[in-house]
C-alpha cells in the first residue's frame, strides 16, 4: 500500500529529518517516490520510479531533496503500484493548474472503477492510473462549480461535494492530499491519517501521514472516517486544522 506524508507550516520549512524517517518507515513500497512543494506559488515535483530504499540505503536523490526542499507545504508519496505502469509518469504527486492555482495531488488506495473516467479537460499525460483519473475528476468538478457559482464559492464545500459525487460514481479507496500552496486538503475513506502539531523537533509545523504509528515517539492523533459516513475531509492552513468534517 502506498504511503503519504505532508508538512504544512506558516512559513517555508524544510523537513530534512521527517522525510527520511517517512521514507524508511514506508520502504516496503518499492515502486517509486515523489516530493511536491511550492516555490513562489508554483508547484514543483521531483519524482522517480526507482526504489526509495535499496541495499540498506535511502535513494541518494531523495536524501538530497529532503535536505534542500523548502516550502510552506510539502507533499511526499512512496508508491506501491496497484494501478498503472511502473515508471516516473505514474509516480505521484501530480500537478494540474486550475482555478488560478497550481495544485499538487497525491493518492493512496485502490479505485479501479475510476480508471474508466474520461476528462473533457487537460489530462495528466502518459499516466493511466486510478490516481491520475481521480485528480482529473476532482479538477473537472471543482471547475464546474466555479463556472456555475455566481457567488464566491466555498472551496471546502466544493471539494467535499466533488469528492462525495466521485465516491458515489466510482466507489473505491481514496486517501488523498491536495494543495494549492495556501491550503492543504486531506481526505480519507480507508486506513487513517496520523497527525502531529507542535512536534518538539519541528516546532510550528503540522505533520500528517498515512503510516499507522506516525513518524516519532511523540503522541500522534489518529483520524479516520466514521463507519456510517463516506469519508473525512480536513482543511489545513499553516499549522492549524481550520476545519474537519465528515462527508
Amino acid at each position, binding site marked *: 500500500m502506498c504511503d503519504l506524508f505532508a508538512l504544512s507550516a*506558516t*512559513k517555508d520549512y524544510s523537513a530534512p529529518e521527517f522525510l527520511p524517517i517517512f521514507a524508511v518507515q514506508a520502504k516496503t513500497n518499492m515502486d517509486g517516490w515523489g516530493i511536491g512543494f511550492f516555490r513562489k*506559488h508554483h508547484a514543483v515535483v521531483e519524482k522517480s520510479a526507482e526504489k526509495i530504499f535499496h541495499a540498506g540505503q535511502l535513494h541518494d536523490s531523495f536524501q538530497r531533496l529532503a535536505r534542500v526542499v523548502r516550502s510552506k507545504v510539502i507533499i511526499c508519496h512512496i508508491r506501491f503500484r496497484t494501478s498503472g505502469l511502473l515508471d516516473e509518469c505514474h509516480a505521484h504527486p501530480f500537478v494540474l493548474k486550475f482555478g*488560478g*492555482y497550481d495544485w499538487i495531488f497525491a493518492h493512496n488506495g485502490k479505485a479501479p472503477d475510476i480508471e474508466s473516467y474520461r476528462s473533457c479537460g487537460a489530462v495528466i499525460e502518459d499516466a493511466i492510473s486510478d490516481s491520475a483519473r481521480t485528480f482529473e475528476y476532482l479538477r473537472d468538478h471543482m471547475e464546474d462549480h466555479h463556472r456555475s457559482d*455566481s*457567488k*464566491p*464559492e*466555498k*472551496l*471546502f*464545500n466544493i471539494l467535499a461535494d466533488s469528492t462525495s459525487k466521485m465516491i458515489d460514481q466510482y466507489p473505491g479507496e481514496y486517501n488523498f492530499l491536495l494543495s*494549492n*500552496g*495556501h*491550503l492543504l486538503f486531506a481526505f480519507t475513506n480507508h486506513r487513517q491519517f496520523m*497527525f502531529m*502539531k*507542535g512536534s518538539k523537533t519541528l516546532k*510550528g509545523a503540522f505533520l500528517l501521514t498515512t503510516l499507522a504509528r506516525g513518524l516519532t515517539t511523540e503522541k500522534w*492523533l489518529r483520524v479516520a472516517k466514521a463507519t456510517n459516513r463516506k469519508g473525512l475531509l*480536513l*482543511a489545513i*492552513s*499553516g*499549522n*492549524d*486544522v*481550520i*476545519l*474537519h468534517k465528515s462527508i
Partner: protein
Amino acid sequence: MCDILAISAGYNYTPGKYLPIFAEKGKENINGWGIGFFREDKALVEKSPEQVFSDRQVHESFQRLARVIDSRIIISHVNCPKSGGHHSTHLHPFKFTFLDHDWLFAHVGVVENIDAYQTTETPRLEVDVYTARIFEYLRDQLVLLHRKNPYISVYIALRIAIQELLDDYPGDYSFFLANESFVFAFCNYRQLMVLKESESMGDIMLITTVEEGLSRTDWHPIVPDPQSQGELLVIAGPDVLYAEEV
C-alpha cells in the same frame, strides 16, 4: 456607524487601491482609523485618532501606509463616536498573541454589558472599550477549548466561542479575527459585502461592512439569516473556504 475592511490574498499585497476607497466611503466616521497587517507572521497595527477623510482628502498617513504595506492579510477600521474614546489606544484593530499566532481583531456593532467582562487569561488589553472585552472573551474561549482538545479545528472552536459570547452578551456583532494565514468574518446584524478581485499578481478577497461595497463591480452580500445567530466565514488566500450559520 464604524466600518471594517479585510483583504486576504495568496501573496503579499499592497492595498494602494482599496484602502483609500474604503477611507473615502467611511468618511463619516470621524473618530480615527486603524490598519493591521502582518510582517513575517507578526501582527503590526498603525492607528490614528484623526479623521480618515477631511477636506476631500484621505488622511496623509493612511494614504502612505496604503502604498507601503505589503501583507497577505490586511484589516482596517474607521471609527465612529459610538466605538469609544478618541485616544488612539482605543482604536481597532487590536492584537493579541495566543495559540502560537499573532491575531488581529476589529469589530463594529453595539454590545451592552460586556464592559464588565473580566478575562481569565493574561495579558489583558489595558483599554476601556468594549471591543477589547469581546476580543478577550473570544481569546479566552479559544484558549480554553484548545486546552481541552489541542486538535479541535479552529473554525469549530470559534463557532463555539461565538455561541457562548452571544448567550452571555447578546448584541450586534460584525467582526474580523485574523492571523497571518486566514481571516474569520462574523456578522449577526449588518451584511458583509464580499468580492473576489483579480489583480496583476493574482486574486484577492475583499470583505467589508460598507453597504455598497468599494467598487461598481458585483459585490456579493452575506446577509445573516434573522432566524440564525449569525454567519461565520473563514477566508484563506483569495478564497472563502467555508461559511455556515452559527
